[in-house]
């Protein structure tokens, strides 16, 4: 019961923080000189990307911990973070494309970061498909733990090889890392905090839901 209460606290706080962050994006942060109002999407894009990578890192750690301890809680954590990670990566790809269209004049380009996000999305979405295809709980947990670990190991390889296979590099991509105006930085940090609070709330909800589902199915068909 306490888990649910704590997750509602995080959800409640993020319900206040996210509108506040949106307010800051539109009323506090200054308009970017060359990109104009389009650049506002950056304040969501970066926190989304950060929390997506965080989800996959949590899934990786949970996968290792599951294989070591075989405790169900780690499987629930893995499942929750993979689910959230896939949703957030989808949003990252969408916001990135929307931002890319007016700025780079294309929705898609094979830049290392874009490539890495896309392949990450594929790997972890396939992990979700795998979970839906296996009925036995122990098997499902082991298989998805292996996939989460393998998938995470693949990330740096994808990033490095994407640099190699693409010889014509759009250099524009670095535009987001040049020094930010301090009010922009504060807005970005506010968005980051809001997003992370939201992430924790969502994560706790999903973990407790996974555990409840497991408990319910254990009641329905006791140990075959």
């Amino acid at each position, binding site marked *: 019961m306490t888990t649910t209460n704590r997750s509602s606290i995080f959800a409640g706080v993020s319900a206040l923080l996210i509108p506040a962050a949106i307010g800051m994006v539109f009323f506090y942060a200054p308009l970017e000189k060359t990109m104009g109002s389009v650049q506002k999407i950056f304040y969501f894009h970066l926190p989304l990307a950060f929390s997506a990578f965080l989800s996959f890192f949590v899934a990786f750690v949970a996968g290792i911990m599951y294989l070591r301890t075989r405790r169900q809680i780690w499987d629930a954590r893995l499942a929750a973070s993979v689910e959230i990670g896939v949703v957030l990566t989808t949003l990252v790809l969408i916001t990135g494309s929307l931002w890319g269209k007016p700025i780079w004049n294309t929705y898609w380009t094979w830049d290392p970061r874009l490539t890495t996000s896309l392949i990450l999305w*594929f790997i972890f979405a396939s992990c979700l498909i795998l979970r839906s295809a296996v009925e036995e709980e122990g098997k499902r947990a*082991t*298989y998805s733990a292996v996939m989460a670990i*393998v998938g995470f190991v693949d990330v740096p*390889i994808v990033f490095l*090889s994407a640099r*190699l296979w693409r010889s014509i590099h759009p250099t524009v991509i670095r535009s987001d890392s040049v020094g930010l105006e301090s009010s922009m930085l504060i807005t970005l940090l506010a968005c980051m905090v809001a997003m992370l609070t939201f992430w924790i709330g969502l994560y706790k909800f999903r973990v407790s839901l996974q555990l409840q589902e497991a408990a319910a199915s254990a009641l329905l068909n006791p140990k075959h």
Partner: protein
Amino acid sequence: MSSLRQVRFLLCKDLRVELRKKESLVSMAFFGALILVILNIATGIGKQVDAETGAGILWVAVIFSSVLGLGRVFAREKENGCVAALLISPAAPWEIYVAKALVNFTLMTLSELVLVPVFYVLFGAQLNGDPLNLVPILLLVNLGFSVTGTLISAISAGTRRNEVLLPILLFPLLLPLIALAVKATSAALAAQPFSELLDQLEPMAAFCVIFAAVGYLLFPFAIRED
């Protein structure tokens, strides 16, 4: 020394089964050749492809046909409950992993002996690179595909949707390897010197090493039947 014998024993066993039934190899070569013919028609009859497109076509055929063989590597063991027998045999899980990866490596290499000549017959008119330069690329991809694929096929064979899940799980992981292979192959087909290929071959070798290590560590978990 004894693990070497175990691996050789398991490898010979699988190759003997393959030699008698010829199910994987024939379907791999046949399907691969079929894909090459389809792509030849798709690129437009009478048109010559350049090195870059040719490289992509060769790899589509190789990867898609290899998945057929890979799916059989474990499905064959699952069908009669042979995995359990393998696990209670004196062979350690990692020895099974190495043997299975070698089986798949052998099957891929043999099927490429058919596919690459077919590729040259259909698309070779404009490609003037030395075909021997393709050999290291092919071998590295076979190795990377086998070490990654054996781990993933142990997972997918444990589910009831093996044939569907295997490519879905495997292809995203292989993307970096294949992308590098396509780049190296297009350089080889465009008659660039071998030293030009090393930029791609080195990271490909690194991919093989990393995934061999990952497979070695994770395979015992993936194969165990609780």
